[in-house]
């Protein structure tokens, strides 16, 4: 591979990784910090994407703006889903993990069916000034849609890191999976803390979902291809680390992108799992976990 192609692939990979980061951050909270096996996370992102499609159809809104507006109802959705999960599964104890997995698998399935019923199986997209154009820097063409996705990803990461480290509830979200009983002895209600944490994670998914349809057209089955990637990123990162999640996402983006322009391109979809297995074997606390 010549150098120019390699640099091209690296840059494209960083942008792709930024987008992956946006998709993974909510899961870093829901799974990494709150221990909820939320495999419906990409499905929620897809709901956010279709939400942006609808908002554009109805009001002609920009998808990123729609994502911001949708964050509010998504917060409520997260609170409702967690409350249901808690009362029916988590509170019952021991096998909650496995049964919870089944629950969220069901939620993802229902979300997909609803999308098929409402929108059909055809691809849907949105229009925006930054879609379909590129920033040309000498030899390089950087698609604006990817630049926007990466920029928004960094904004989400920054906001999340601040929230986790500077607010009482954010700190409690970090603490609750480490020792919920100890947290209750400090005057916090662990269930309420998890509810808020899951709400925030889901709110962020509205925005990253909007990025999904900025990056490319969506169809109802799209969420499935992201499940493996986002879980790989969150585990690679070291559960619950915001900075680690961004770095792991960039790493995956770069590796996938470089592989795509290499002779072994057909192996690209296996990269996420390969990386995950390698890291779990060598460094179980994740690349950036403490």
């Amino acid at each position, binding site marked *: 591979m010549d150098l120019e192609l390699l640099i091209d692939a690296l840059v494209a990979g960083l942008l792709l990784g930024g987008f992956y980061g946006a998709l993974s951050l909510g899961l870093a909270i829901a799974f990494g910090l709150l221990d909820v096996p939320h495999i419906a996370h990409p499905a929620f992102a897809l709901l956010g994407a279709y939400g942006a499609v609808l908002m554009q159809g109805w009001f002609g809104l920009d998808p990123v703006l729609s994502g911001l507006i949708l964050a509010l109802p998504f917060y409520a959705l997260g609170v409702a889903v967690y409350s249901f999960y808690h009362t029916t599964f988590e509170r019952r104890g021991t096998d909650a993990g496995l049964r919870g997995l089944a629950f969220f698998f069901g939620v993802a399935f229902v979300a997909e069916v609803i999308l098929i019923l409402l929108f059909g199986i055809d691809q849907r997209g949105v229009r925006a000034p930054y879609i379909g154009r590129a920033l040309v820097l000498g030899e390089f063409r950087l698609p604006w849609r990817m630049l926007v996705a990466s920029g928004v990803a960094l904004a989400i990461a920054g906001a999340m890191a601040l929230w986790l480290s500077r607010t*009482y509830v954010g*700190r*409690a979200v*970090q*603490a609750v999976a*480490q*020792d919920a*009983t*100890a*947290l*209750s*002895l*400090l*005057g*916090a*209600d662990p269930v309420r803390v998890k509810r808020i944490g899951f709400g925030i994670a889901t709110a962020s998914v509205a925005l990253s979902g909007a990025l999904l349809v900025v990056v490319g057209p969506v169809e109802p089955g799209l969420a499935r291809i992201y499940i493996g990637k986002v879980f790989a990123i969150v585990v690679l990162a070291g559960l619950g680390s915001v900075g680690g999640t961004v770095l792991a996402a960039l790493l995956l983006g770069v590796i996938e992108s470089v592989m795509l322009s290499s002779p072994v391109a057909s192996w690209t979809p296996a990269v996420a799992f390969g990386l995950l297995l390698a890291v779990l074997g060598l460094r179980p606390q994740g690349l950036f976990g*403490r």
Partner: protein
Amino acid sequence: MPDLSVTDLHAGYGAVRVLHGVSLNVRHGETVALLGTNGNGKSTLMKCLAGLLRPSGGQILLDGKLELGDVPPQDVVAAGISLVPEGRRLFPRLSVEENLVLGAFRSEARATMYEELEKAWETFPVLREKRRQVAGSLSGGQQQMVAIARALMACPRVLLVDEPSVGLAPILVAQVIDILAQLKAERGLTVLMAEQNFQQAARIADRGYVLVHGEVAFNGSMAELTESEAVRVLYLGV
């Protein structure tokens, strides 16, 4: 009027009955030791007091009026009682400072968080040096200090401490007890401390209760306990 009074308390875990009618009281400003060897129900009583375990019978009253037997831990903290739990239970992957700040989670405690944090650094200078380290990396004695400091961040009137000496070298045990004595003198805290280490407990406690098989086998001033060889040999193994 006693600050904290427990009357005929019964508690256990499912079919396992552990406490069989325990009564005790801790008066304002007192330090009371809860003595007894392994498995006699000290921690079970502490859990009932902190709201972690629901008693099956009896009564827990704060200031003679507030019923605490059936409320969640958050409400116990709000009422002014904080527990330093058995095994310390820090958040191991959070920094020392983050652990302490979380101690001020209650909205009333947040207002005084910075002052309390400063007080904590003064009481535990070694923790100030390590405030950015994750709590899990500290030594046992330092972790115990974090646990005590974290509980104090809620500004409790009554501090419950469950076996602060467990797993610590003798010199560290003495250090932790010194700190409790200092806190008692400086802040007029009311303290109930579960402890197996009779000599160390005797250094700060005014009175003691000896728990045997979930019942109070003996209670009296620490002086009386020290004199009664029968009690010490039979129940405390010292």
